């Protein structure tokens, strides 16, 4: 059991568990949290999972834990850990089954006032155009050859095939394409699962949300992003579907033997891993990149359908019904990056499980219009609450390997949420407060109730206070489509 007194406070919202806490820790664990969040984190196994993650071979500096942390499997959700190249490890469980689960934000010139009379129709059109739900088939059925191309090209495939605009691709993390993706490292089973699902939202906590841009905190950045106070925006949250789930499952199983081969001792079998320069590690990184590219393409195809839905519901009723991409960001990913550790530049694999990149200004990979500002960070809320657009900072590079929080973070189990919240009642309450809801499953809606999550505004306040991000805009939900 880990207690508050096991931490030393090293900043107003930064707490550290030193390596002396447990013999097998290789680096300290640093938690970004206020008092309340730290207590929440200690109420489940999140911090224990972060301590377990700190035992991975090849870790550098420290394991970071974001304020939206909650218990996951292997790594906590909200965990960031960097392993050095060439012989540090890569751990599929430290990235997660939904590889490149992420969030995309699109802006519009539609005022909320103009949209208001049409929001019911817009919610219905989004629900009808964007396939969602358990096991949902996507809108594009890929041939084996097409899936091979999606794996290799990601968003570029969607551009070549009429699902994207050049600026969508440009305003996607890594340009929507991770290099080194080789589908020969993906199982037949994963390929079979991937072929029918492109262009689908899935279920669980995935959603499409129409938002009001409620408040601007950083006018220059908001202008660059095309976010205008009082206008509506669209968020899409989903990942690599069954394709990514199968790839992670395949490699978690395969690496059970690899850890014995490489004599790696772990406190939890879900943390299985292999050195980045081993055949197993290289194969997983390549397969993970296929799933990452699939997820970028998946969100892009959904954008294509969302634009159609906007046209169906709003054409002829508002002046300009178009949607412009702000950014697309991954929050379950392993990335090869260069960071400065102890004054030296090192190449590392940054595992972000429920955490996003939050690179500061000057990062050459950012689209030109964002380069002097920093990377957009998208923090979705919990259906009835606000969502946030932030910017990464220079300080985040040393504090958290250029990473920030990815959402509000759960505090209530799904089991308890279903016990305390009724889906149909929640829907009525949300609709009474002006939020249109379209959902496949009422128990599923109850599991995702806002009260099951932390206060996202407080989570954002902590990352801002810690210096790893700054506020750009706050969004408020107007319509939510749940899988």
């Amino acid at each position: 059991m880990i207690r508050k007194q096991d931490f030393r406070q090293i900043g107003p919202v930064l707490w550290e568990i030193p390596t002396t806490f447990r013999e097998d820790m290789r680096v300290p664990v640093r938690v970004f949290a206020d008092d309340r969040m730290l207590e929440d984190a200690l109420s489940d196994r999140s911090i224990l999972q972060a301590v377990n993650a700190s035992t991975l071979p090849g870790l550098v500096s420290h394991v970071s834990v974001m304020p939206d942390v909650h218990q996951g499997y292997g790594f906590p959700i909200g965990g960031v850990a960097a392993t050095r190249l060439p012989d540090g490890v890569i751990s599929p469980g430290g990235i997660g089954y939904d590889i490149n689960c992420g969030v995309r934000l699109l802006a519009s010139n539609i005022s909320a006032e103009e949209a208001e009379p049409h929001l019911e129709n817009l919610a219905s059109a989004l629900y009808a155009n964007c396939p969602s739900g358990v096991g949902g088939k996507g809108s594009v059925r890929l041939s084996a050859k097409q899936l091979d191309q999606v794996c290799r090209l990601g968003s570029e495939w969607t551009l070549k095939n009429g699902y994207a605009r050049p600026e969508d691709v440009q305003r996607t993390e890594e340009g929507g394409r991770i290099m080194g993706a080789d589908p020969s490292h993906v199982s037949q089973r994963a390929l079979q699962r991937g072929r029918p699902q492109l262009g689908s939202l899935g279920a669980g906590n995935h959603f499409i949300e129409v938002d009001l841009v409620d408040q601007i905190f950083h006018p220059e950045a908001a202008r660059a992003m095309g976010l205008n106070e009082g206008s509506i925006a669209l968020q899409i949250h989903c990942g690599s579907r069954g394709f990514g789930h199968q790839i992670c499952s395949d490699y978690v199983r395969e690496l059970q033997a690899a850890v014995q081969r490489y004599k790696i001792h772990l406190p939890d079998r879900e943390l299985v891993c292999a050195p980045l320069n081993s055949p197993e590690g290289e194969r997983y990184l390549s397969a993970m990149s296929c799933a990452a590219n699939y997820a970028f393409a998946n969100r892009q195809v959904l954008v294509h359908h969302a634009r159609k839905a906007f046209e169906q519901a709003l054409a002829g009723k508002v002046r300009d019904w178009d949607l412009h991409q702000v950014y697309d960001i991954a929050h379950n990913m392993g990335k090869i990056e260069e960071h400065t550790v102890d004054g030296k530049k090192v190449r590392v694999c940054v595992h972000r499980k429920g955490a996003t990149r939050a690179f500061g200004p000057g990062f050459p990979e950012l689209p030109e219009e964002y380069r002097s500002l920093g990377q957009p960070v998208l923090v979705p809320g919990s259906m009835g609450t606000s969502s946030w657009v932030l910017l990464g900072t220079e300080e985040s590079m040393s504090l958290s390997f250029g990473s920030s929080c990815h959402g509000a973070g759960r505090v209530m189990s799904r089991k308890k949420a279903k016990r305390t919240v009724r889906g149909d009642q929640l829907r009525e309450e949300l609709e009474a407060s002006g939020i249109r809801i379209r959902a496949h499953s009422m128990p599923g809606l109850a599991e995702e109730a806002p009260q099951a999550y932390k206060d996202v505004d407080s989570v954002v306040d902590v990352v801002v206070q810690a210096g790893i991000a700054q506020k750009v805009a706050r969004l408020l939900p107007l319509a939510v489509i749940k899988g």
Partner: protein
Amino acid sequence: MEGRDFEEVEHTADSALRIRGANLEQLFCNAAVGMMQLAGIESLAGPTRKRRIELQASDSESLLVAWLEELLYVIEMEEVSFTKFDLTVEDNTSLTAKVQEAPIGNIKRHIKAVTYHDLKIAQVEGGLEVTVVFDV
């Protein structure tokens, strides 16, 4: 043995089942039934089919993960559920199952994966017990 064959236990983000069985065969059957209940799978009356599943793994925990993953794969790809299990486990590493399938009417919850998180099949009074965490 006393207690239910399976029960959902608290997990903040995902879902977990504590499963019991007098032996590995019963534990694996109960895990399959528990997982389908967790997913809220409703079977339709209609034509049933039999399927034979053979799996191998390095130890009993890996075999359990492989078994549940196999069922999840068939549920997703073929849209069938399972109504009867006849299962044999040999040497903790080899499984042969004859299962009866039925068409699926509805699935309420998507289970993404079966994890190895803290996975340990333990000997308890009257049989075996394991807690499986599912990514949902």
